């Protein structure tokens, strides 16, 4: 078996320094995890050589830790650094930015400052460079570039222009930088760049007591200027050796990451390349439509390629894919040892959702932000405090502990900051500021997963694969924009200046990515790459440039197999199947049940036989039925009040115009009280129907605008009643049940029209007034056209009233419909263009047709849906559309 890179390095170190020499070696890596592999390699050698004495392991550091070790500065917490920077920025400029608005690009500025230090850049010079064009010419900068920069930063901006604004800020930048650095250093802090730079620039003073030590720099790729300088310093003392993982015979294109060759000239490679034949891996590329399909492909790929004992890596390039991949892993012995080494976005966890939710609740706003933050921490601790870790930990539990820990430390950091620094606390006065600070602090956190690196399957990020070797590699989402990631040039420092001073730009970022990518290929046996090339809402995806390079490099193209993963797109819709045992048709039917039957038999079946109810929709605004309930309720309350009767049916009390007027005038809060009483009743009835529910939809305070509208509607009804008055109320919300029919009549009253008394059967409709709905050509159309349901309903009430003996005075029954939304819509119903003033006029025909219909319903076994075109043309939204497999009507107003 071929040795891995780290095994090669270990072997060579042992060969050169011996077991006892290890303690004098410091190994410097680009990443922490490599140490585990060196340790593993050493253990193997120990066994092989049967070493019987203890060995002090070499010191193993990342390059950052190396710098930290010798620097007098230490890194500062991000949030503290940003706040510090903000203070400096505010003092030097006339900004109006809040700390929370500043936060995002404060981080950017920090990065810029750190990068400038990493580039060992003289910040004063940075500005002078360009304001005095001459200097640039001398410094050997391209004339074209110099001219460009001069245009950018030279003194020719007009007042008030963007240019001017930028230039002013640009000139202030050195001052801000200096102030920031001074303030940081006074407390012993520094940015990453500043720390490394300090060690480079004061190497002799800081790096002491290293006699006899050797620093082995292992597996680096692109070097920042300060890192380069640091290595150079160690080299000058002749205390450094270098191991590069670079194979010059691996020829995709020297343009991609040739920079390592330059480094190798300066820092010669101590690695003795094993004499390998130029073996190339088996390469597969799989095209897909979606990301999910790529995750799913992991399942089959592992089954095909992974054998127990193999080193296999599933490389996740898009961090949000982690979870999908985990779910798609196959069961089975050889797949059990899968390990995740990848950041998981905190934003996708429950605790994050809980924190943001807590923050947006108005009741959690406290003027004192520390108290607020303290409460938040307490609440979260209570809710998410990890359970005692069980024996069998599943990864969700661990994830939530991790999420909890990350959230808690971040919150605490903020809290200690606010407690420590009076000036920071004064910046965070408003709850909103705190809210945003918390969010900014949490939203980009990645929970670091550290897999046991030694065992079989690794689910791993690209960066995490550095220095590691695998037999089988599956690289997901090898798409442009992901592989390599979209570099961005977000920086306050102009691109050209960054170029001139060799600060890292996105070109380098993609070169580093290329190095890591091709290294995986070079050291693998089977490498499969998947990508999506579908058109999506966000544009067309396309394969990574690396794949294009491979496909058009003749020596590789030959050994690549290409596949396309087909995702089928059949709708597989199914028809609704009526339940086999037909539940009973209710003995008594309501008018609306009968109307529903005429509209659609299936709707009748679902609503009135299976008794499926549409759930109360939570919404910012009341749904129409809630509105209706409250309007009805309020009107009932009003008339109870006017008649001074508290019973449900204030019978036979005559109300005059003046009575109503008096109510409206004398009791300014009368309407409001009535509304409140209606609320109370609605709430009680809701609770009795939904015993499990904690909350009701009837919260008056949250619906002030609706309340006004409800009262407006009630007032309109009252005004119309005044015009009709005097009227004698026989019943309100009157329940009637007779001969297999039942219903609640909104109001029964006696009115006088053109000198004649009528018993009026009144129904309120809170929908919009439309004369069409109140007129029909004939009685028979009522039983075929569902759009005439209002007429049918009121006539049914008439029948019930006349059958149940409520019409004691034997007055003509007059059905009417009142639309509270309309001021003057005619409430009469019309059959064949004549108003129905006496139910008796149409009673015979109506009742005989009704009898036929009821007979039909009772005999029904199969309840068919309304024909499709009819159903689609119907203006009403049908809650059951999904069950029929029909499309939800676009509900426009």
């Amino acid at each position, binding site marked *: 078996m071929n040795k891995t890179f780290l095994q090669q390095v270990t072997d060579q170190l042992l060969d050169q320094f011996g077991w006892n020499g290890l303690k004098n070696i410091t190994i410097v890596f680009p990443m922490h995890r490599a140490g585990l592999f060196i340790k593993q390699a050493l253990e193997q050698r120990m066994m092989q050589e049967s070493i019987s004495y203890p060995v002090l392991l070499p010191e193993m550091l990342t390059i950052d830790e190396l710098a930290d070790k010798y620097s007098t500065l230490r890194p500062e917490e991000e949030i503290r650094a940003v706040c510090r920077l903000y203070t400096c920025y505010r003092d030097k400029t006339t900004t109006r930015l809040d700390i929370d608005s500043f936060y995002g690009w404060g981080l950017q500025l920090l990065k810029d400052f750190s990068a400038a230090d990493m580039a060992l850049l003289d910040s004063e010079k940075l500005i002078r460079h360009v304001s005095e064009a001459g200097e640039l010419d001398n410094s050997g900068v391209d004339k074209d570039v110099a001219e460009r920069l001069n245009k950018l930063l030279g003194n020719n901006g007009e007042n008030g222009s963007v240019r001017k604004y930028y230039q002013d800020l640009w000139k202030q930048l050195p001052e801000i930088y200096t102030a920031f650095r001074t303030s940081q250093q006074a407390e012993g802090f520094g940015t990453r760049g500043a720390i490394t730079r300090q060690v480079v620039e004061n190497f002799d003073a800081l790096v002491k007591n290293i006699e006899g030590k050797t620093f082995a720099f292992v597996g680096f790729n692109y070097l920042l200027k300060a890192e380069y300088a640091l290595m150079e310093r160690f080299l000058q003392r002749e205390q450094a050796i270098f191991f590069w993982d670079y194979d010059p015979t691996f020829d995709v294109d020297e343009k991609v990451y040739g920079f390592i060759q330059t480094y190798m000239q300066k820092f010669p490679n101590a690695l003795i390349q094993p004499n390998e034949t130029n073996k190339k891996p088996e390469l597969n590329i799989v095209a897909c439509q979606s990301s999910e399909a790529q995750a799913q492909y992991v399942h089959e790929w592992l089954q095909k390629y992974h054998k127990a004992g193999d080193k296999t890596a599933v490389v996740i390039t898009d961090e949000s894919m982690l979870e999908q991949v985990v779910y798609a892993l196959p069961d089975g012995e050889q797949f059990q040892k899968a390990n995740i080494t990848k950041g998981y976005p905190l*934003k996708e966890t429950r605790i994050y959702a809980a924190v943001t939710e807590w923050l947006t609740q108005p009741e959690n706003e406290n003027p004192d932000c520390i108290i607020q933050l303290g409460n938040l921490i307490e609440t979260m601790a209570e809710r998410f405090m990890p359970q005692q870790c069980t024996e069998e930990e599943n990864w969700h539990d661990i994830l939530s502990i991790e999420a909890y820990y990350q959230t808690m430390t971040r919150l605490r950091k903020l809290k200690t900051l606010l407690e420590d620094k009076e000036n920071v606390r004064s910046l965070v006065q408003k709850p909103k500021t705190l809210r945003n600070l918390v969010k900014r602090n949490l939203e980009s956190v990645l929970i670091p997963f550290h897999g046991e690196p030694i065992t079989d399957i690794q689910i791993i990020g690209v960066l995490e694969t550095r220095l590691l070797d695998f037999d089988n590699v599956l690289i997901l989402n090898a798409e442009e924009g992901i592989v390599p990631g979209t570099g961005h040039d977000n920086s306050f420092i102009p691109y050209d200046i960054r170029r001139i001073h060799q600060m890292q730009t996105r070109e380098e970022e*993609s070169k580093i990515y290329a190095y890591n990518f091709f290294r995986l290929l070079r050291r693998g046996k089977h490498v499969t790459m998947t990508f999506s090339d579908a058109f999506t809402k966000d544009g067309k995806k396309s394969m990574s440039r690396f794949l294009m390079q491979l496909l058009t490099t003749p020596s590789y193209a030959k050994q690549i197999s290409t596949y396309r993963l087909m995702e089928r*797109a059949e709708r597989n819709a199914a028809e609704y199947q009526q339940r086999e045992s037909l539940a009973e048709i209710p003995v008594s039917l309501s008018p609306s049940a009968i109307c529903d039957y005429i509209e659609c038999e299936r709707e009748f079946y679902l609503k009135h036989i299976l008794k499926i109810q549409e759930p109360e929709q939570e919404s910012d605004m009341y749904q129409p039925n809630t509105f209706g309930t409250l309007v009805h309720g309020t009107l009932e309350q009003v008339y109870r009040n006017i008649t001074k009767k508290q019973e449900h049916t204030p019978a036979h009390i005559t109300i005059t115009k003046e009575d109503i007027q008096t109510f409206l005038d004398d009791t300014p809060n009368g309407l409001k009280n009535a509304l409140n009483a209606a609320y109370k009743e609605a709430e009680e009835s809701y609770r009795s129907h939904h015993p499990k529910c904690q909350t009701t939809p009837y919260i008056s305070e949250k619906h002030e605008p609706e309340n006004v509208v409800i009262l407006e509607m009630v007032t309109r009804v009252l005004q119309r009643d005044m015009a009709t008055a005097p009227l004698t109320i026989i019943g309100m919300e009157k329940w009637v049940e007779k001969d297999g029919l039942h219903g609640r009549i909104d109001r029964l009253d006696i009115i006088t029209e053109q000198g004649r008394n009528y018993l009026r059967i009144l129904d309120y409709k809170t929908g919009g007034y439309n004369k069409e709905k109140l007129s029909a050509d004939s009685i028979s159309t009522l039983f075929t056209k569902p759009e005439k349901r209002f007429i049918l309903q009121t006539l049914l009430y008439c029948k019930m009233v006349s059958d149940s003996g409520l019409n004691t005075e034997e007055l003509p029954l007059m059905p009417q419909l009142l639309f509270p939304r309309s001021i003057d819509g005619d409430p009469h119903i019309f059959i064949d263009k004549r108003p129905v003033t006496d139910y008796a006029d149409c009673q015979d025909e109506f009742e005989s047709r009704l009898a036929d219909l009821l007979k039909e319903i009772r005999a029904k076994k199969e309840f068919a849906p309304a024909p499709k075109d009819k159903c689609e043309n119907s203006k009403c939204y049908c809650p059951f559309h999904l069950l029929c497999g029909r499309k939800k009507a676009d509900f426009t107003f």
Partner: protein
Amino acid sequence: MTANSSSRLYVRKASAGSGKTYTLAAHYIALLMHGVSYRQILAVTFTNKATAEMKERILTYLHAIAREVEKSETQDFLRRVSDIYAELGYGKLPNPQICQQKAEELYKDILSNYDRMAVTTIDTFFQQLLAGMVLTLDGAVGYSVEIDSDMVITNAVGQLLTNDAQDPTLCRHITDYMKTRMADDKNWNIRSGLIAIAKELYTELLQEKKEQVVTDPMRLEQFKKGLHQLLQKQKETDELRALLQKAQQWDEKSFSRGKDIISHLDNYRRTLDNTLEKKEIAFNPFTENQTKNIRIEENFQSFYKGSDRQQAYAMMNRIVDLAQNLRAARLREELLTQHLSDLVLIQYLRDAINNVLQENNSRLLAETACTLAQALRPGDADFILEKAGIRYQHVMIDEFQDTSTLQWENFRHLVEEILGNGGSTLIVGDVKQSIYRWRNGNWEIMQGLQGNPSIKPLVRNFRSRKEIVGFNLRLFDYLCKKEEDPRIKDIYNEGFTEKRLEEYYVNGKHDGGYVQLHFYPSAYNGEGKHQARALILSDMFRTMNRLLKQGEKAGSMLILIRNHKEIEEILDAFEHLPESADFHELKQTHIVSNDCFCLEYSQSVNIIIQALRYLHNDDAIAQEYLLQRRPDKTPEDLKRLNEKDLPLNDLVEAIIQQYLIGENGETDGKDMAYLCSFKDSLKRYVGLHGSDLPSFLQYWDDKLRQSTIPSVEGNDIRIMTIHASKGLESDNLFIPFADWKMEEDKQNSKLWCEVPELPAENGQSALLPVSKQKSMQEAGFTEYEQEHKMERIDNLNLLYVALTRAADRLYVYSDVESTKDKDKDKDRKTYHVGQLMAEYTEAIEPLQKAIDSKEFNNPANCVERTYGQEIYPIAPSEKKEKISAPFRFTKAETLEAHYHSGTSHITFRQSGDARKYTETVAENSRQVMDRQSFGTMCHDILATLGLFATTEKAIEAVRIAVADFYQQGKIPNEAVRKEIETILVRTVSAEEMRPWFTGDGEVWCEQAVLYPHPKSHQPEERRMDRVRINGTKAAVLDYKFGEEEKSYYQQVKEYMYILRQMGYEHVEGKLWIANENKLQEVNA
């Protein structure tokens, strides 16, 4: 653009099929060949899709030149490059060998810096510019970009209605708004109404003319009053009243049909007051016919019998005039006041949206162009480019006819600068294909370049065969002649001649072709429409089957539809094709679509959504749905899933496992594409908005359910909307429902009109929304007519785009209504495109007969027109040769995708800190400190300490280290911090501890030792708290922060053993019991 700057401006009017992308790519490569760096060329396309296509094509051509220069297609391409090269004034293109070399280098170079290739959409380009100056705009714009403005708007409206509405003023405005909706028969759930208003704010018009939108309630109220007063005070009303008074004295006998006229006048007089009191809209006193007769003097004379003819004529006409004015004024008032309450809310909406954006520190993609336009003052354009680190010398713009006013406003700065510096600009577009006016596209910009000497039309059609080119030329020639709007003739200025036809198609290679039109009768009242559509689909499918039988591939067929709603009808019909030889081959094929298949079509997705819904609020409908699909699962099973309070992603996965995974561990796979796409969307949603079930369900209802799934083209029949088909072609094209109206007043559509009566803050006329309806014309809004004219152009263009997609065969189907009306000219306006085509092919007369017979479902009544021959022998060699992309996956082997879901036994280690300190953290609420994690923390702090010169220095280091831990949030609270600090300070300052922390020499802090276990010989790792080395002497120290235990001594003894094994001669061991402040000697 000024004339002198146009020297290197190239404008190409590229008709459909004329190889627009080919030309752009050739232009691009010509520049490269001249030595221009690809970093200096900006190519702007209209969509992301076009961007991808363009990039791929450029690479493909470069690859072809580099490696397949000998192929004839490559030679053709090089010839085109050579022409452009010369046109650009670069002289003669270098010889093929040099081109080959250059292309090879460029290919590699571009690939290794692929994202530096500035081929981009205009939005992305602006976005890049803006990103570079976020700070410079002083926080006015957020840091990250929010693409989904709908989401922001929904959130903002939600906030407005719940939290903000508690503000009494706002509450009043909302109530007013609701009341106006009460009067109309509209739903009072104003949420969607507000969302609609808010969306309008982001149309370009309103962004650009933001200052012309008056939102101040006081001013609007005044305006409303003023409008009415204006109406009442009119001198004219007095005059009208007087005239009507006078007219009362007219004798019926004075008129030949006197009763009519007199009663009309009476009627009018009676309603006049109502009108003035604003109760109703005034009617004209006379019918249209009467008015006509009154207007024409001779006609009037012929029916007026009275003697004072002159006078009466004048008076009647005056009455008509005044009445019309009054009606116009009244209509105007009515229309203008309809949406005033919307306006008041606009300011609140803007604030609410800005709040949401500010909270997320983001800015809207939709505002990019506008923000940039505001920032781009004179002299800033080059600055902004410089800031972004880019310097373009050449720019190319594709689909120029779809560029919006604001976009061009921003872009022209760049173009002018480039031209001024001697660079070149290529503009390519075709006003005939402008169909994106609704997305702010303004073809007038392109049309405005008319007459520019740099214009060159590209007319040769490389796509369609002769019959199709000819049919389209003739059809549009005919249509244009019939149109009134002179602009249409300007746009379609081709006209038909035989000579022109010869010029337009590729002679010899593209002969033949076939066009078939089918018209189906349906009546004006919609009768027969359903039958017609059913017939259309069965005819279309029959034709497809016939073609398949003849050997055409399914992948060569494309169905174009006007809007998404038509897709379900087509899919339903396709899925229910009867068993018949007529459809045998067709039934083996599939229909795929890139922009038509919505997520809600899928059963699997619906199951997931319904399960979520059930879990959310016990939705009984959802429960029934689930029961229908999986009668074997109970609601309790489902409830159990959520006991753990899972994050959304995991909950969905659990639902999939319970409801969709079969016994083989997979789903049935039929709607795999939907399921995958749904999960991608879910992931994106959770990534952006977190794991919140109710808001996800709201998002599903509002948006996600209608979002379409991506698909990849295989050998399947494609279906797409005309809008999405731009730039595409197909051998066999089907347009089943060519029946979109040329002009239409859709319900709820609004036009923003200039209202001089109300000046805006900046002195210009205010902009007010007016419901788009016919009466706008009478009310004097010229915007109405303009809009209708534009609609005609839009719809004609849509027809042009649709018809020109066809390469070999074109099939168009339409139902056609009765056109019996007498007033033909007027009626023509209401024609839909199918009727226009029927008119052109003279199919209307025979159709009329069929309509009269009312036999709508009789296929014999359909009228067919054909051109050319359907079966034209097309030899494969005649098929257009194309340069193929080297990295296309067209020939890849196919694998079937499967969906699995399992409970994996994955492991990972916790980050060191969380494991160590979670217990500590947890204690926070219990206010007790667990000894173990307390100890761990103390250990960790001590491990950071090396050696110090003095004890004071060591103490200081302890304090700093503790403070750092505290600041890192690792220590739960101040009390614990103090405790730790105390104990550690005591540790380093104790007299007997001094030698461990001060002085010179070597110290190991938790350094790892590999230790071969004496029995197993397995290497094990040991970390000793603190070891001091002095030559051959070694001393080890272990700290303990709990009660003293025996085992501690054992541990230290082992350490001492290890040290001796390592070769140290003198080894001592110590144990520090911190609680008791004592150092214990350990003896070996």
